[in-house]
């Protein structure tokens, strides 16, 4: 079973290499390879998630070297859950983009670049989720970043090059910080394996622990777009091609959040940083949503709501109780799916009407009722209207916050509710302007091929299924939260026996 763990990383990389070797020929075979690879990754992720939930954490030691020396890939409940959701999302996005390319017969958007870059990014995401040592996490980030650089500047138009420059400089700077953090960690503990670091940290003075923790937190905060470090995100994401934006928005920031969860639960449980995280979470929520309210481009508006909802996840992490972590995990799963489907829907709108500007759109509810239904369901899911999964996730976080009972938690809960309301206001604004007001001069330009509908509708349905299967899913999230705070199962599974 543990041999399966490497496959979500290795398969997409192999597929990318194969596709680069094939080049521009055989586009149908190419698409087949991409889709089959992602289906296999999804299947493996589901199998792993089920197996890990039943039997406990699985570890693969790459190259046969034992844990603290070698590179270990660790699959516990959190990583497999994130892996499964990300595989489902990437599969949907891949189908969507293939359908788009085939419909357009687009010479300027060759499959031979988009697909390998996309697959490399998927490999990087999987690697980051499965990484059992800090340096492998860095490598995972680098892999997914290099894939995303290519996707973001796809076609090399002026605005994309501009956005790509911001994004690449941000990525490089955070990578340098990550390397510094790795150096500091290595100096303090003499190891890279996260389980080993966690063990050795217990005996170190608080000042050193804080230094390492804050450096790492800064790095992951940049990746996750947490408030003071979030300015790059709404600036760079919206210009990418619609499928790329969708998967960036859904996944890449969540990899950062995943790393923060790992950091706060495994390496530094219960430190004094928790209260800092709380205020950062509050600022992220409010600043993000205030940015969303004034935007007149749907993509940018959604990018700002993305930043704002990262605040929810960080709030759950800062509370550091099993319920709060469970709430964060549930919300992350919900948010990946909903945010990606919203961006795919905006891609559909852009394809149908040629614009995403709220100043120019109008009357879409009449013109394209199907898009209107998809958008409506996803938007109220994002805002958290009962009984959808957004509501369930927020409810979990609220209950965890109230259970903690401190004054600052109450303020945070207030901020969370306010952000929720403002999110509703922001998406209602989109709905009113783009869908409900009488259309002025909106013309439908291109038709949407069936697989694009299917991929988008599939993701929306997946988000809805989180409501239907909320019981099992939140049960899994609760077990994940408990497992994260227990720590010992992870350390024992990686280091074996009593550790070194």
């Amino acid at each position, binding site marked *: 079973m543990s041999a399966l763990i490497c496959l979500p990383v290795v398969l997409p990389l192999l597929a990318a290499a194969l596709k680069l070797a094939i080049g521009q020929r055989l586009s149908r075979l190419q698409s087949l390879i991409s889709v089959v690879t992602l289906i296999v990754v999804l299947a493996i992720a589901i199998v792993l998630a089920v197996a890990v939930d039943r039997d406990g954490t699985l570890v693969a030691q790459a190259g046969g070297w034992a844990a603290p020396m070698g590179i270990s890939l660790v699959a516990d409940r959190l990583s497999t859950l994130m892996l499964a959701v990300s595989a489902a999302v990437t599969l949907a996005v891949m189908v969507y983009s293939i359908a788009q390319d085939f419909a357009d017969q687009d010479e300027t958007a060759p499959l031979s670049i988009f697909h390998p870059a996309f697959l490399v990014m998927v490999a990087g995401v999987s690697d980051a989720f499965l990484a059992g040592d800090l340096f492998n996490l860095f490598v995972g980030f680098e892999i997914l970043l*290099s894939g995303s650089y290519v996707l973001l500047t796809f076609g090399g138009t002026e605005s994309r090059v501009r956005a790509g420059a911001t994004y*690449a400089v941000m990525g490089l700077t955070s990578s340098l910080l990550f390397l510094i953090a790795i150096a500091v960690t290595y100096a303090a503990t003499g190891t890279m394996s996260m389980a080993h670091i966690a063990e050795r940290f217990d005996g170190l003075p608080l000042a050193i622990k804080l230094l390492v923790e804050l450096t790492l937190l800064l790095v992951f905060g940049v990746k996750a777009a947490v408030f003071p470090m979030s300015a790059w995100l709404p600036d760079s994401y919206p210009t990418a091609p619609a499928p790329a934006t969708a998967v960036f928005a859904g996944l890449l920031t969540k990899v950062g959040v995943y790393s923060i969860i790992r950091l706060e639960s495994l390496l530094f449980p219960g430190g004094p940083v928790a209260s800092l995280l709380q205020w950062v979470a509050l600022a992220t929520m409010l600043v993000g949503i205030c940015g969303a309210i004034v935007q007149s481009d749907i993509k940018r508006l959604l990018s700002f709501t993305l930043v704002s909802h990262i605040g929810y996840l960080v709030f759950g992490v800062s509370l550091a109780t099993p319920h709060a972590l469970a709430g964060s995990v549930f919300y992350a799963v919900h948010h990946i799916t909903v945010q990606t489907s919203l961006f795919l829907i905006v891609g559909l709108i852009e394809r149908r009407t040629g614009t995403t500007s709220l100043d120019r759109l109008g009357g879409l509810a009449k013109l394209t009722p199907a898009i209107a239904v998809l958008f409506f369901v996803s938007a109220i899911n994002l805002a958290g209207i009962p009984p959808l999964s957004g509501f369930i996730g927020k409810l979990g976080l609220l209950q965890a916050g109230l259970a903690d009972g401190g004054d600052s938690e109450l303020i945070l809960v207030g901020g969370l509710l306010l952000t929720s309301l403002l999110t509703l206001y922001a998406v209602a604004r989109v709905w009113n302007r783009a869908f409900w007001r009488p259309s002025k001069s909106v013309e439908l330009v291109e038709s949407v091929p069936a697989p694009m509908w299917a991929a988008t509708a599939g993701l929306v349905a997946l988000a809805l299924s989180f409501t239907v299967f909320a019981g099992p899913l939140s049960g899994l999230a609760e077990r994940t939260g408990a497992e994260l705070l227990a720590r010992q199962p992870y350390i024992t599974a990686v280091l074996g026996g009593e550790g070194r």
Partner: protein
Amino acid sequence: MTTSLILLVAVAALIAAGVTLLLERSLVRILVGIIVAGNGVNLLILTVGGPGGQPPIKGRFEPDRMADPLAQALVLTAIVITLGVTAYLLALAHRTWQLVGDDTVQDDTEDRRVRLAATRGDLIDSVVATRERYRAILDQQERELAELAAESRRRVEEGEAELEQQILAVNVDLGRWMEDHRNAGLSPEELMARFEEARRLEESSKQDLAERERELRQRYAARRREQEATERQARRKIQARARQARKEMRHAIREDRRRQALALDPEMEGQDD
């Protein structure tokens, strides 16, 4: 573990230089900054790997005296990754140069649009305020013109009244003179002769009077002409000032409209497909 201070100082210097360059707007400088800072970081990793030693090859050297192989592996990986991304950034800088003409990172147009939209309210207010201000100036100038016209009308009336008074005074003098002679009790012939004489005198005095009147009228006309000329001049001046003010107002309003249009113009957004 002891480390060399010189190495740490070198690390600090490299990273500081790199960060300084990172803050530039030109992509090539940013790139150089990243390379320099990256070297600093790599040096840092090597430094934390402990002191140097023998090559870490199993079986040929004493394990206790080997250098730390992990730090070297980390640095190698970091160098490879930085190399790849540096090449990418260089390509990006080149592409920016192709598209824009230099390699600076541009502002986001959508950002600019949102920022302008935020100041749109202020702009409209300022347009209204400018309009009010110019209208007030115009009103005042119109008032001044009206005052000037009233003043000149008053002067004309005064001049005419003065003239009437003088003519009246001359006539009254003549009447009084004739009365004096009539009352002196002279014979009719004498009176007649006196009257003839008086008439002659009167004729000449009438002529005199007419002459004086003409003279007065001429003086008055000259004064009036003079008055009108200065008035015309003042009016021209005021009209020029009003024209200038109107021109400035139109210009200011046009400028504000242009800025507003820039804020509202949807064509400013990116040229993506």
